[in-house]
């Protein structure tokens, strides 16, 4: 089970952007959406509130009565700042104000292998435990996924904002493990656009699942393998996340990549072998100290007089 807390960290977004984020989350296999009171107030006037379980992050127990309509209320612990250094417990209440769950949030210095015994202890507690690990040691995805795999509630945020386990990584891991088989493709494009605009961040091109270049391939061995069967070097089909495979030509390319690119650009090179073109590609790539654009490749082949 996944609770996504992206809306807890976009208070600066416009009302419209917050509503769009909520709509994007609605299309993903997320079990509950957590948000702060200001965001809850902003989305309240939506004509039709998406059918979700809403969890409200509150600072005071009395807020349960002030902001009615949520499924659960997480009372932010007074010692919240301590979560940057260690795990802390928070109480989770239902709409009647009854303590019904526990939230464990923060940074742990335990690895996934170390924490398994503690997970067993948490699983045995009377009240369900949701786990919101922080990512300072780059363990959050693995920790959240391990807890999620036990059928428990893990708390994420899109793109891992505010030091969380990235929602998209947990969804893909769960899909590949057969825990949450997706019937539909996942599309993170709009979510990515809004979140990067709101937070003023540039998402790295190699960011797992949502990076722009994760299906770009240059190396000769890999292009050759992918042309035989994409599964050889791809963990899942790019189409599954609405992405496309891109063959890039550069210093580590092989002949197969040249053949593929010629075909892709509808270029004919009957009188010139691909080995000669490849040599030119490598030479030019070394001079430019980067891979070639399609235009540069086109010009190169044209210059060799074989278009």
């Amino acid at each position, binding site marked *: 089970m996944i609770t996504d807390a992206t809306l807890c960290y976009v208070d600066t977004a416009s009302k419209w952007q917050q509503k769009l984020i909520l709509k994007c989350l609605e299309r993903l296999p997320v079990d509950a959406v957590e948000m702060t009171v200001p965001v809850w107030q902003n989305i309240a006037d939506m004509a039709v509130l998406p059918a979700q379980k809403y969890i409200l992050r509150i600072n005071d127990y009395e807020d349960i009565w002030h902001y009615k309509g949520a499924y659960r209320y997480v009372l932010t612990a007074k010692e919240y700042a301590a979560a940057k250094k*260690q795990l802390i417990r928070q109480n989770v209440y239902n709409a009647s104000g009854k303590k019904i769950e526990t939230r464990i949030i923060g940074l742990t210095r335990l690895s*996934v292998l170390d924490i398994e015994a503690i997970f067993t202890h948490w699983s045995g507690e009377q009240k369900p435990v949701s786990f919101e690990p922080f990512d300072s*040691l780059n363990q959050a995805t693995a920790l959240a996924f391990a807890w999620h795999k036990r059928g428990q509630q893990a708390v994420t945020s899109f793109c891992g904002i505010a030091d969380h386990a990235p929602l998209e990584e947990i969804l893909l891991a769960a899909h590949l493990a057969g825990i949450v088989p997706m019937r539909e493709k996942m599309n993170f494009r709009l979510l990515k656009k809004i979140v990067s605009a709101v937070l003023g961040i540039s998402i790295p091109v190699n960011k*797992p699942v949502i990076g722009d270049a994760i299906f770009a391939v240059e190396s000769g061995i890999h292009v050759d393998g992918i042309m035989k069967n994409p599964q*050889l070097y791809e963990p899942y089909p790019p189409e599954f996340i609405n992405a496309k495979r891109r063959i890039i030509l550069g210093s580590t390319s092989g002949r197969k990549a040249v053949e593929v690119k010629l075909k892709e650009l509808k270029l004919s090179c009957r009188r010139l072998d691909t080995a000669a073109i490849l040599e030119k590609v490598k030479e030019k790539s070394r001079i430019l100290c980067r891979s070639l654009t399609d235009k540069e490749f086109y010009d190169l082949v044209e210059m060799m007089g074989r278009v």
Partner: protein
Amino acid sequence: MMAPYIHIVDTTLRDGTQSPLIMFSDKEKIAVAKMLDEKGVYQIEAGIPAIGKSEQEIIKKIKQVCHNARIAVWNRLNADDINTSLACNADIIHISIPVSYRQIHEKLKKDETWLLQEIDKVVYPATGNKAEVTVGMEDASRAQMDFMLAVVRKVKQFGVGRVRFADTVGIMTPLAVHEQISRLIQETSIDIEFHAHNDLGMAVANSIAAVQSGAFFIDTTVNGIGERCGNCDMDKFIFAASSIFNSDKNERVNGEENG
């Protein structure tokens, strides 16, 4: 818990440069190698000699300027590749062997029997040289354990002391890493080097799990560059490993008594 001694095997100049958006000039490659050498990495995977003469030249220069790290070169399971590599004076000849059904049958268009015979033909002669030979099990995370054990036992007979377990498409989780690495070590006592990819954002966590399972050679790259989502980020791994292996394992949750 006493922190384990971990050997960093840096592959920035091999797997890292396979990232399509990153390319180093020759000068930059030398500078990166020197910095890695000064930083104290155990091994630098300097490149793939089979790529061509310019790659071979740069590997030779890297070997000249690095005084501490062991210089390794990457090879396919191919005698010509290895002969080219031997001329580069590298300390380690690394031979990559596809071990998953997909890789053997669909990429190489061969079968397991052919592969084992090829190991006899290629790996055995390679071990007769001055350079150490290590073997990489490509796509190990999707391979059958029985076949991997057969490969490890065979190369061990030839004197190979370390094999690389490659999560080529980055689909592993720490528990799967633990299960596979522990079994390989338990059954063969060979040294394991773990090579992670970050497709699910678990490269660092998987590498930590590998160490905890007995793999004391960890592959990393500077800034985590590499194919698709990259490899295990060196700095992030070192930071995580130093925090995790030097921490109190009896960590308590604040507020536990009130839970």
